[in-house]
């Protein structure tokens, strides 16, 4: 083989490798989704959503308490995390050049890389240990901490998408900086901010590790914020590592529910971004 042919062959080999690696990544995805749907559908029925877990040996039952628990935990996380995230994002974009903005950005990126189990430990130290009580609030705190850096960074990026002429226009009309941000810039970026919230919610709804020793688990229906509370993910974990066939079926149903919830959030988020891009990109 001459030199040119060899180089061409090598190039084709490389292209083939790249295409193959895409396939290699899509195979597990297809496998996971296939098992999730086929096993999940078998176990999914109305009672899964309306009934409580049954003890071992009794078939049937559902995860009503865990579904409500997850919604409560995610709700607490959002209430605590969204304002902090958005306001830090506003600071980073409004005072983009300042040292403190760089520090916040650095903190957000670091926090984003902190393992979720470590966040759980921190929430345990500040919200469980002093009260000697696992609680929904502690779980919500852990989720809020996971959510804040995501919210802060997306808000910052989205505010930078808003044309600076809009901000300058408001300022030229004599608006204060606060007024310009809250009545002009943030509303213009609102679909994007909602996207950020949805993406962050999708991320925290699937978290297990930070909840293991904060909100713990609860076999009963509970909405008390100062008590341990059940969540889809922790319940799923308990069922998955149990030796009971019936619990495994429930775990698949729980996983399908969870993934549907998470994907729904992501898809809604993407639709909102599309709208924002259409609005602002010329």
């Amino acid at each position: 083989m001459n030199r040119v042919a060899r180089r061409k062959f090598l190039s084709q080999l490389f292209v083939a490798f790249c295409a193959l690696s895409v396939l290699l990544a899509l195979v597990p995805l297809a496998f996971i989704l296939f098992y999730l749907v086929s096993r999940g559908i078998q176990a999914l029925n109305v009672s899964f959503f309306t009934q409580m877990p049954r003890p071992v040996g009794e078939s049937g039952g559902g995860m009503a308490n865990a579904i409500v628990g997850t919604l409560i935990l995610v709700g607490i996380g959002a209430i605590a995390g969204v304002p902090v995230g958005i306001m830090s994002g506003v600071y980073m974009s409004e005072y983009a050049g300042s040292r403190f903005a760089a520090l916040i950005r650095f903190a957000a990126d670091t926090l984003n890389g902190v393992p979720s189990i470590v966040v759980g430990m921190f929430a345990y130290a500040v919200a469980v240990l002093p009260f000697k009580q696992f609680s929904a609030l502690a779980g919500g705190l852990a989720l809020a901490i996971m959510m804040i850096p995501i919210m802060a960074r997306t808000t910052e990026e989205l505010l930078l998408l808003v044309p600076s002429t809009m901000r300058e226009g408001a300022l030229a009309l004599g608006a204060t900086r606060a007024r310009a941000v809250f009545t002009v810039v943030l509303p213009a970026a609102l679909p994007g901010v909602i996207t950020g919230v949805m993406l962050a919610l999708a991320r925290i709804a699937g978290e297990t590790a930070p909840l293991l020793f904060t909100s713990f688990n609860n076999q009963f229906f509970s909405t008390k914020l100062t008590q341990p509370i059940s969540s889809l993910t922790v319940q799923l974990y308990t069922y998955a590592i149990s030796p009971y066939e019936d619990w495994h079926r429930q775990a698949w149903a729980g996983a399908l529910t969870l993934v549907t919830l998470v994907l729904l959030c992501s898809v809604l988020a993407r639709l909102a971004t599309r709208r924002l891009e259409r609005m602002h990109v010329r």
Partner: protein
Amino acid sequence: MRSSEAGFRIGTGLFGAVLVLIVVGIGFELWRQSMLSIAKFGLNFWATSTWDPVAGQFGALPFIWGTLYSSLLALLIATPIALGIAVFISELCPAALQQPLVFLTELLAAIPSIVYGLWGIFVLVPAVRALETWTPPSLKQVPLFSGPPFGIGMLAAALILAVMVIPFISSVAREVLRTVPSAQREAAYALGATRFEAIRAALFYARTGIVGAVMLGFGRALGETMAVTMVIGNSPRVSLSLFAPQYTMASVIANEFTEAADPLYVNALVEIGLVLFVITLAINVLSRLLIWGMANANRRPIAPATDEAKAAA
């Protein structure tokens, strides 16, 4: 006017300060809660292998070994595949395929860890067990493949971790590749380079950013908890064997933290968390610096700026 401006700055700045405080607080709290174990065992904690809560003996070597070994194995598998995907999406594939492929790889990142774990237990582990049973005895002599075929163990953990970090590495690598000026590739083509040679030049140009992307994946793999806990076997040992059940730092915390009653036991677990925090912190900082440096070097990119570049500008 002036005072309202300052009020706004301080008001929003306070929220930002919360973020900084959380990071500092995590480090401080973990250090405070692990002082007992730090004082009692010192550096020996990381050099010994006895983990006996009843006797009050704690050595974390098997855990740090399991974490590093599983993460490195996962990177070994994931890096070439993730880079292949990044190159395929950003350089090779038809424009119409680009968006769907990005969506599908992002889907891989959106699946919660616990679902990977569930799939791992019931689908991947039996497959790995079959593979291990089928391994010829001659190969079993090699330390890498020794031990009985459990299914659960290092190999299953590394495989599932690889699938989980692929989307992270490939999306950052894709962004990094986009900051390579197209003049770079055009010049290569103009000199008669083949596709492979032109892309190799682009990859070389983007090498710091690519290294950053891989390290970001490494950070993810180190801290990954649920999926690994469910398939690695949770047995503290230092072994090269891919078939052996082992343990990781994150898994031992997940499994034992709620059961730990004795203060020294709790402190030992928190110390593992502290070290995990410090390692992931260092890796994240380093990888961000690499990626930022890369973005700064191309301050006027011809392709659209990445998030990182925007942040750095």
